[in-house]
């Protein structure tokens, strides 16, 4: 999907949101969520060849095992941010904060194998 089409769709959605906000505010929320998910999917479709390129670039290198961790962490960060922003739009700040906390913990949990690998390299110092 080209950027012009995407921008056109977003402007249409914005117009609908503004129209529906005045008499059916809940419909504007659904349109907002639907557009957010749609733009996210469009972004993922665009980014897919980039991810494949990065994978092919690093396939023969020793760092190949670390790239999935980075990409997962980035993915979690973005999904959590989008969810938090939707919560904030609705006025649920507390829920947004809890979602962010969940995202941070999830990223730390993903990083646990890396922490374990680093500690195993340094443990001889403690011995």
């Amino acid at each position, binding site marked *: 999907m080209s950027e012009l089409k995407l921008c056109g769709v977003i402007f249409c959605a914005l117009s609908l949101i503004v129209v529906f906000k005045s008499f059916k505010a809940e419909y504007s929320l659904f349109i907002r969520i639907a557009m957010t998910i749609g733009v996210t999917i469009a972004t993922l479709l665009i980014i897919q060849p980039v991810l494949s390129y990065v994978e092919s670039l*690093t396939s023969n290198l*020793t760092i190949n095992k670390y790239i999935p961790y*980075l990409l997962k962490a*980035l993915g979690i960060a973005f999904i959590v*941010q989008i969810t938090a922003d939707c919560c904030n739009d609705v006025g649920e700040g507390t829920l947004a904060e809890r979602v962010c906390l969940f995202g941070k913990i999830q*990223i730390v949990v993903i*990083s646990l194998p*890396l922490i374990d690998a680093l500690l195993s390299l*340094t443990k001889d110092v403690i011995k």
Partner: protein
Amino acid sequence: MKKCILFLFFIIASIFCLCFICFGNDIHKDIASSVDGELSNFMDSLPNDISSLFPTDPLNSNNIINEKSIIDYIISYIFSGVDNVARSFVSIFTLIIVTCALSSICNSLSNSALNNAFKLCSTLCFSITIFHSCVGLAELTSAYIKTLCRVMNAFLPLMSTMGIMSGAISSTTTNCAISVLAITLVEGFLVVCLMPLVKSCLTISMVKPIGGCNLSGISKTIKTAFTSVSVFVMSILFFLLSAKNVLAQGNDSLSIKTARFAISSFVPIVGASINDALRTVSSSLGVIKSTCGIIAIIAIALLMVPIIIHLLLYKLSFGFLGSVCKALNCSSEGEILEEADSLCGFMLVLVACTCVMFIFALTIFINTAVGVA
């Protein structure tokens, strides 16, 4: 009558000199064969690629150094070193670019905590990669120092045999004692402390990017303290080696000159001839000593080539990658690379000091005046 006696004396002296000229070479071969066992033990202690650069029988060979083979050896290690370092360089460079690209995407997040969580993940990935490289280098350095100590241990019996044969008993004893002390200190202190030191410094350098606490001063202090202690100990060993050797040489020279005077004065008729025979033996020993010493110095210098090339190339690559990180505004990765660069320089200093110390000991051994001056 007098003329007849003089003429007879000159004929006998000429025959005597001719005998030395004819049998001098045999004396050299006899002495060379008596140190063959120790020399072959020393050559066996060298790695195969270095021992193949010397002739099979170096003491009886005209040319102990083949310059072309040595240059080929150095060039081959440069190429293999560049190959290894290039792989590591490409991996780390790719990781830097990917991390920077993903970080710049992550920077668009409004929530800074998520940004920091991602930065933690990327710093951990980067730290592990650099840690592996530096620990590999430290293991290589330890292995080199152990090989160097093994080679010096194998050379000591040869050194002591030749020293005692030449009559330089005091200086040989001093030289061997201090060499044994140096080898023990290097093996017991440098090798044991190197790996923990490298890991500690790297771990400390990772604290700031991950935890935010700057402990780089502690890392610098540890390295400075270790370098100061090593340099101090090596200076003491250098001083002991040179000062004690000078005194011991004087001692040996006095003893041998006294013995020579006694032989030439109190042994009737053949005293002077025995004196001259001793000179021939000692000259031959001097040649063998110099040959063995030069072989040992060349072997130690060649042993140093692979590790120096590796450390230099890694230092260059870490320095360049650190500059790239600063240019791309990846400060945490840049700090870890700076620490790795500093550790490479530290290991280079250790390797160079150890090598110079042992080459100095061997030079003292070669220059020790032959017992019969």
